[in-house]
């Protein structure tokens, strides 16, 4: 009892604890001086969707951080050779098929078309908003073309990855051949899987466009898918460099 001070008024009076009868500041939800985003539902949805995508990307990054640390550990790990009783390193780098380089350019190019589709959609949204309509204008076609091209390039990339796998297997490297080949299949496969998810999202966006859904919804989907697509491209470049240079 004696260790506690009897007075209870310690504590900064300026904390936001306890109301002081004053109305809250004229900002929504929030603290930390965020700018007034206004009452537009679209802006809010876009912001929220982008935030969600950012969070999701952080989660996916951790999966590949984990793979990377496994890669680095495995590369450097000496293993006990029972026959000699010595520790030996058994990492033999895999000769990556040149096809992967071509695939890289395909994916990067698809990033350009993706960005074009995303920006076109944003432009149309701005026009629609000013005109107070909900549906897209006639220039929807160019947006859909860029979108379709992105899907085609994405599929081309995945096909190219599949062909690269075949090439690797033909030269004697399948998933269980060596630790390095295991990682090549693992990293490219996991990336490809995530990219496939992105392609589904693009198809969904395309369907929404063809079905003439409100432009605001389409823009949100296309925007976050665009950011996801760029992340996939960056991730691929990272994986490629890891496999090619880190050995």
């Amino acid at each position, binding site marked *: 009892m004696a*260790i*506690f*001070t009897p007075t*209870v008024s*310690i*504590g900064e009076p300026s904390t936001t604890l306890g109301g002081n009868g004053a109305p809250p500041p004229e900002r929504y939800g929030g603290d930390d001086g965020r700018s007034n985003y206004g009452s537009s539902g679209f802006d809010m949805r876009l912001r929220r969707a982008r935030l969600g995508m950012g969070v999701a990307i952080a989660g996916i990054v951790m999966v590949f951080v984990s793979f990377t640390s496994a890669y680095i550990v495995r590369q450097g790990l000496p293993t006990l050779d*029972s*026959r000699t*009783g010595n520790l030996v390193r058994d990492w033999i780098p895999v000769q990556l098929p040149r096809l992967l380089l071509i695939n890289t350019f395909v994916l990067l190019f698809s990033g350009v078309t993706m960005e074009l589709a995303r920006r076109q959609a944003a432009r149309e949204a701005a026009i629609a908003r000013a005109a107070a309509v909900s549906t897209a204008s006639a220039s929807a076609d160019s947006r859909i073309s860029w979108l379709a091209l992105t899907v085609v390039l994405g599929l081309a990339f995945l096909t190219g990855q599949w062909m690269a796998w075949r090439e690797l297997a033909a030269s004697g490297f399948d998933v269980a051949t060596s630790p390095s080949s295991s990682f090549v299949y693992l990293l490219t496969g996991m990336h490809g899987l995530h990219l496939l998810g992105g392609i589904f999202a693009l198809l969904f966006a395309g369907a929404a466009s063809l079905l003439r859904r409100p432009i605001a919804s389409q823009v949100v989907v296309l925007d976050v898918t665009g950011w996801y697509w760029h992340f996939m491209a960056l991730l691929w470049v990272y994986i490629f460099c890891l496999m090619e240079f880190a050995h």
Partner: protein
Amino acid sequence: MGLVLLIVIWLITFVSSYFFLAKTWWLPTGASAAAAGIDHHFATTYAVMGIVFVAAQVTLGLFAWKYRDGGSSSPARYSHGNNRLELIWTMLTAVLFIGLTLMSGSIWASERFRPAEPGAVQVEVTGMQFAWYFRYPGPDGKFGATKPELIDPTGGGESAVGLDTTDPASKDDVVAGTMYVPVNREVELILRAHDVIHSFFVPAMRFKQDAVPGLAIHMHFTPIATGDYDIFCAELCGLGHYRMHGMLKVVSQEEYDKWLAAREAEKQ
């Protein structure tokens, strides 16, 4: 209700503390050179954490009773906290906890940072589902080669560890199912495992180390009292984990030499 809470919390605290203090179920008597230091640090941590345990639980029980809403008591104090107090108890706790760890550092260092002394008795310990085997290098001081293809657990002894008898250094290797070591000499262990992770645990020696396939882990300890000590497996290794057991027999130097010589003789 407040009074019942106080009584039950205090009762639980005092009953459990009693059994801790009375050492009704306790660490077995230490029989290694490291045991004294480990046990001493255990006692220190024990005393400190014991005081914290009792103080916290007693206070909780006391407050539950003292501040019960008795209808006529004064209103609760409106307080959002006390920053100075927060700072004080944070510092104290940090000093206490980090202090304890640093105190234990020298023991950990002497056990794990330095390799075994030259001249230590070398024993290679191999764990497999569900037995321990102990290999001695013999007079040549070298362990012979082993080959995974030669491993045959049903054969026991040399075939269980996969000893390559074509290697000259294997000729004098002794493989036993019981571990003999001489008292008051440092023992160097080389821990290996064939199949899954096991763990070599000798409670009386205050010794534990996982035996990991793919690794040969060097550890050391010094037994200081003769006797028979149980060895248990302390890492889940399958259905027989509960019965994976060995005996460590610490004997005089003369008895150890006699035992080893007898094993060597059997090999001829």
